[in-house]
């Protein structure tokens, strides 16, 4: 058995994965990063818009600070966020942007002088200051009080991915692509590596490490219509949940992006609306300002997606052979802006819609985009329930996003949290030793080899993997989408229960030899259906509407009963997840209130419960992080 050893094994080589790897490597630890695709193809590279950080260099960001960013983030989360993590994030974000700059990211910079911009289809003027010229600039994004999103054209994820991967190459980190972790090696309480299927040969290999860090991104692919890359299939969540002890935090918190294109579901960036693009209905009229007078198109994503759905339900959708949609209008932004700052959007329109966004409207509708749901970790990024297992980025529920994340906050999170968790992993590794038993590796490999043999020999049956997966993907669209209700969610659970039974009887049609994709799909099918069941069950239990979780039968946000986080674990051999709950946050810097957009009624929490936790000085116990939050605004104000 081919066996590799390292101090740290990172599963996933997107931004969060490589950022953790870099932190460990510069501190002298031996790191291996696994990736199912060459690192730069990771889905991080598809993020177009940018990274939020309160640098405040643009004139439109004047007066910004980590405190303002914090308030935006917590409001955006509909008070579902862990406020300690949100604070760590906003304080470190500006520092991380400068770190990335030093490593080579070609951030767009402030250009002094007068310029114009669009908002709500109207043209306004701004004048950037001479003393800020050449510093990192920012664009506007939804749900924010200031222009705060640092960017590189509309290829921010790509540019940062190139930079981090370059840095990893410089440090000599072993980035091994076409390797898929299919099980963790553990004894029920300590993780010591992974069983990995080589996607060049199909062979199983063993990777042992003192610490293992998950950075495998989201799991949008369990939905039929998603903006996610085909690799965002939940593989990382599945192997962590398979331990039976690591919980998924807030499975019901799934984001639907307002502007997936129709058909093909490819994303066009929120930068389109941030830069002044508008949403139009069947009559080619704006409508968002009717629902959201204050923020209009730039309310948070959950709200815009909900309002778009309401508007289509009111008969204002544009009919098409691919179902109803609305229009995104960026015509007024002009050729220069579209050719430089929205270049990927231009390319996508040309290649996938055969339209020119300078003169034509872009067909869009809410599409699955992001999983706030993820492996629940503490603020150090350590997974609950399993020593030596960490997670960062979209795979994790760290949890700064709560029930809705803001555009530009997740791409920033990959690097900011990657850096913070990377440092914590370094602390963990210092002085930590572990014994690698050969038996536990042998047993783990034997178990996986047996699963593979059963699929190839059709020992459990001949169900078709793609057919069963299709049932899952359709059920998620039908019942776990923008709006949810008791009846639909109950039905969804029934459908998925049946699908789970069928998934356990899948057999391959092909021979499974070498890098066989049918086998890869079959290996994770059961786990994907379990993820779907976690979403449906958690959504059914949560009898309120919060952020992206909208219950038609419970439209109020209920802080009295539901100001908490769902934790779903899947005990071995069970047919349903078991759910428990923890408080949304240990500390309330910002007590629950009105977001200022989205409307809706709030059932207030018991004031004693909130004030008991609003210890202003609680903040960071670990001086290290507090120190690194150098961005001048150290005080933890309540706003």
């Amino acid at each position: 058995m081919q066996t590799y050893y390292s101090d740290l094994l990172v599963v996933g080589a997107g931004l969060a994965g490589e950022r953790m790897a870099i932190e460990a490597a510069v501190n002298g630890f031996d790191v291996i990063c696994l990736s199912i695709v060459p690192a730069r193809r990771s889905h991080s590279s598809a993020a177009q818009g940018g990274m939020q950080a309160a640098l405040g260099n643009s004139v439109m960001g004047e007066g910004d600070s980590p405190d303002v960013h914090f308030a935006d983030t917590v409001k955006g989360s509909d008070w579902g966020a862990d406020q300690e993590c949100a604070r760590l994030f906003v304080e470190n974000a500006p520092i991380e942007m400068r770190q990335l700059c030093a490593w080579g990211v070609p951030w767009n910079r402030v250009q002094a002088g007068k310029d114009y911009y669009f908002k709500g289809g109207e043209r306004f003027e701004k004048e950037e200051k001479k003393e800020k010229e050449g510093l990192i600039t920012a664009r506007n994004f939804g749900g924010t009080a200031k222009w705060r999103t640092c960017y590189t054209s509309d290829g921010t994820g790509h540019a940062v991915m190139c930079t981090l991967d370059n840095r990893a190459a410089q440090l000599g980190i072993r980035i091994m692509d076409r390797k898929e972790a299919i099980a963790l090696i553990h004894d029920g309480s300590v993780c010591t590596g992974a069983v990995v299927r080589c996607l060049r040969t199909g062979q199983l290999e063993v990777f042992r490490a003192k610490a293992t860090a998950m950075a495998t991104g989201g799991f949008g692919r369990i939905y039929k219509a998603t903006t996610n890359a085909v690799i965002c299939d939940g593989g990382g969540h599945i192997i962590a949940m398979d331990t039976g002890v690591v919980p998924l935090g807030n499975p019901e918190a799934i984001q639907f992006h307002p502007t997936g294109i129709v058909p093909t579901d490819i994303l066009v960036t929120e930068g389109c609306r941030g830069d002044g693009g508008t949403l139009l209905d069947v009559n080619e009229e704006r409508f968002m300002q009717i629902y959201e007078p204050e923020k209009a198109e730039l309310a948070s994503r959950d709200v815009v997606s909900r309002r778009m759905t309401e508007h289509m339900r009111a008969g204002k959708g544009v009919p098409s052979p691919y179902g109803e949609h609305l229009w995104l209008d960026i015509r007024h932004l002009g050729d220069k802006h579209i050719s430089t700052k929205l270049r990927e959007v231009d390319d996508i329109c040309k290649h996938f819609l055969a339209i020119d966004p300078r003169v034509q409207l872009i067909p869009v509708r809410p599409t699955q985009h992001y999983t706030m749901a993820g492996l629940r970790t503490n603020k150090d990024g350590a997974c609950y329930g399993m020593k030596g297992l960490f997670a960062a980025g979209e795979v994790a529920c760290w949890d700064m996003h709560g029930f809705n994340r803001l555009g530009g906050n997740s791409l920033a999170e990959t690097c900011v949290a990657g850096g913070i968790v990377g440092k914590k992993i370094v602390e963990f590794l210092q002085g930590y030793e572990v014994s690698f038993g050969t038996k536990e590796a042998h047993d783990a490999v034997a178990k996986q080899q047996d699963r593979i043999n059963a699929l190839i020999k059709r020992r459990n049956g001949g169900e078709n993997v793609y057919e069963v997966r299709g049932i899952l993907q359709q059920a998620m669209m039908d019942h776990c989408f923008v709006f949810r209700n008791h009846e639909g969610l109950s039905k969804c659970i029934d459908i998925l229960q049946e699908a789970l039974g069928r998934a356990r009887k899948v057999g391959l049609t092909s021979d499974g030899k070498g890098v066989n994709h049918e086998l890869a799909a079959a290996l994770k099918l059961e786990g994907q259906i379990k993820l779907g069941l976690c979403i449906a069950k958690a959504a059914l239990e949560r009898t309120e509407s919060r952020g992206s979780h909208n219950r038609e039968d419970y439209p109020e946000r209920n802080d009295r009963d539901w100001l908490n986080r769902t934790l779903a674990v899947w005990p071995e051999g069970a047919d349903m997840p078991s759910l428990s709950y923890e408080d949304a946050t240990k500390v309330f810097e910002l007590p629950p209130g009105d977001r200022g957009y989205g409307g809706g009624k709030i059932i207030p929490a018991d004031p004693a419960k909130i004030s008991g936790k609003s210890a202003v000085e609680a903040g960071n116990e670990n001086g290290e992080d507090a120190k690194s939050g150098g961005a001048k605004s150290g005080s933890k104000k309540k706003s």
Partner: protein
Amino acid sequence: MGRKLQFEIFRFNPQDPLSVPRMQTYFLEETDKMTLYIALNRLREEQDPSLIFDFCCRAGICGACAMVINGRPGLACQTQTKDQPAKIILHPLPVFKLIGDLSVDTGVWFREMYNKTESWIHTNKVIDPHQQEERMENEVAEQIYELERCIECGCCIAACGTARMRDDFMGAAALNRIARFMVDPRDERSEDDFFEVIGTDAGIFGCMGLLGCEDVCPKQLPLQNQLGYLRRKMGITAVKQLVPALGKIKLDKLKIGKFIPGGDK
């Protein structure tokens, strides 16, 4: 009713001792807005689950799905079937090692390239990220990004006459990478340093100027300009190294032209 598309697909699974390289025929009815991403996935899910090919972002952003489509390297995800004849012939990219059917190993090739070109910022400055960042003109940032847009799909290497003849040729992707760092003021490498990397027949002097690279680049990178610029610049560096006195002559007097990334088109 759409057209009946005939696919001729290269098949070979190196992991199967019984497999022999061959072409295999499939048929599929064309649907509206069908891309090769849709078509190939339908073939795999409905007709032949043993088919090996790669997709990732399926939006023309990540570069995973490059293959030879009716004789021309391109990204399968953004290839619409309506722009192709009813018979669509698919081969894996040449030059790169075959993984199976239409899938090739670009990952190892490009990681070697990062090491050859030392694809990172070389600087002796110690930067404290707690302090304000160094300023840069926005125009310079845009010039860097223009060249940073490479998605490492491998099309330029597959379409390169020199790369087909010599294994050690760095190809347009690597030369473009060098150009990216030459424009970046944060990188302190000198012209002599860059000459060390690309001043050979495996580097810029191996380019025969056929420019297939630019023709097939799915991101329309200005490869022709870059190769021309590097060739002149490295040529002069070579002469300067031979005749040290020339080093005192200002480059602009030699009329090597002004470097405009993306210009000239």
